[in-house]
């Protein structure tokens, strides 16, 4: 994360020419195509780092269908794209989600993130892939009613957990880290995992086992099968272990089952949707709202293929259309990076 240039975060108002929603490969390449046309971009992503699905789902998996790269991992593709777009100096806003998008009377768009950053921009590019990554909700009956009171998918303030009987579920770093962090403030803490093997960092596993051996916390091997409580307050849960079912008294539960993709707030922006995808035309990749474009896996059109390379193509055509909006009075001359000295200057190679 530290090597990503120009990342900022927080409560502020930003004037922009283009805002790209999603820092996956297609969002990153859109920075490049817009940059060649003198449009500087802000890029927002709910993850804490660039790469989108390439970073979150398959950083180490090889990809074989990127033109001219016979094999590349998700992480390497991300790193190479970051290198390629560096001359265009985008500003990244990580761990933020666009919750609101509306058009002002002057035709510009206002976007607000969940942490209060506000953008005013001429062009919006939705490159949100499968939607925003959100924590997986265990399919337990009635769990929604307990969320934010007794069931939490992240820890905002440790103090909220002081003196509570906490159950943490999972076997990765999030589950282990929060077990170690919350154990000192909890009244009691139980870590529940389906098997006695952990994916998390070995030193965290060792520390957790030491706490459990000293009786400072409980480690249980099994799975939750039911929740018990009322008015959003959890009082107990049923767990299934190899010895059968058992009821545990707890009043706070933190399930860490990884992330899944949900369309999220995009659904409420007044855009046409077809089965959670955004229909676009194939000349500009523009949505039903002029000035809002959708590229990559999130869009749909006749013949659409969900391929990274298709998203790259879509980014290039989108940028041409975006130029007309950002610079309505400028005539756009089509140029090649191989021969245009002005493009080469922008790329910093001349």
């Amino acid at each position: 994360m530290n090597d990503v240039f120009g990342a900022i975060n927080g409560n502020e108002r930003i004037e922009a020419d283009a805002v790209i929603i999603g820092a996956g490969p297609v969002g990153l390449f859109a920075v490049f195509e817009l940059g060649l046309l003198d449009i500087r971009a802000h890029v927002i992503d709910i993850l804490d780092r660039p790469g989108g699905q390439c970073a979150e789902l398959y950083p180490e998996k090889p990809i074989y269908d990127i033109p001219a790269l016979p094999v590349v991992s998700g992480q390497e593709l991300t790193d190479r794209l970051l290198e390629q777009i560096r001359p265009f100096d985008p500003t990244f806003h990580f761990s933020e989600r666009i919750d609101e998008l509306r058009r002002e009377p002057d035709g510009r768009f206002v976007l607000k993130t969940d942490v209060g950053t506000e953008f005013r921009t001429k062009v919006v590019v939705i490159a949100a892939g499968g939607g925003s990554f959100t924590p997986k909700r265990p399919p337990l009956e009635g769990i929604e009613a307990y969320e934010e009171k007794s069931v939490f998918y992240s820890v905002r303030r440790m103090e909220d957990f002081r003196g509570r009987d906490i159950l943490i579920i999972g076997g990765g770093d999030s589950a282990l880290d929060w077990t170690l962090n919350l154990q000192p403030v909890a009244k009691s803490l139980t870590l529940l995992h389906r098997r006695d093997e952990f994916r998390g960092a070995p030193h965290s596993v060792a520390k957790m086992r030491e706490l459990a051996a000293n009786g400072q916390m409980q480690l249980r091997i099994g799975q939750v099968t039911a929740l018990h409580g009322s008015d959003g307050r959890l009082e107990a849960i049923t767990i299934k272990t190899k010895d059968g079912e058992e009821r545990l008294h707890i009043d706070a539960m933190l399930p860490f089952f990884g992330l899944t993709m949900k369309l999220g707030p995009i659904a409420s922006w007044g855009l046409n949707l077809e089965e959670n995808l955004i229909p676009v035309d194939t000349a500009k990749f523009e949505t039903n709202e002029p000035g809002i474009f959708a590229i990559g896996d999130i869009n749909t059109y006749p013949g659409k293929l969900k391929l990274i390379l298709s998203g790259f193509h879509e980014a290039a055509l989108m940028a041409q259309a975006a130029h007309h909006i950002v610079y309505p009075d400028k005539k756009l001359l089509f140029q090649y990076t191989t021969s245009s000295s002005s493009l080469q200057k922008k790329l910093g190679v001349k």
Partner: protein
Amino acid sequence: MAKITFIQPDGSSQVVEATPGNTVMEAAKMNGVPGIEAECGGACACATCHVYVTDEWREKVGPPSEMEEDMLDFAFDVRESSRLSCQIKVTDELDGLVLSVPEKQF
């Protein structure tokens, strides 16, 4: 071709023809078997193609790899017979395979 039977939580079942070399997940998706979501497209990265292997087939199908075990942590109601169907390669030996689809994929 190998025949694979998918049993749904309501007891209904569907037999699909699977091509050796493909994965069981691909065979399920191609034939529209409900309950096999495969959100990540077969990268062993999401655990939404979770299935239970019926007892008589468990030995032939074999156990999950370490990477698959790690990913099964993200599935729900995991049992001894749990596998991710994107990690089961169809072979002629698996002709007749019977799998159950879990109630929910998360």
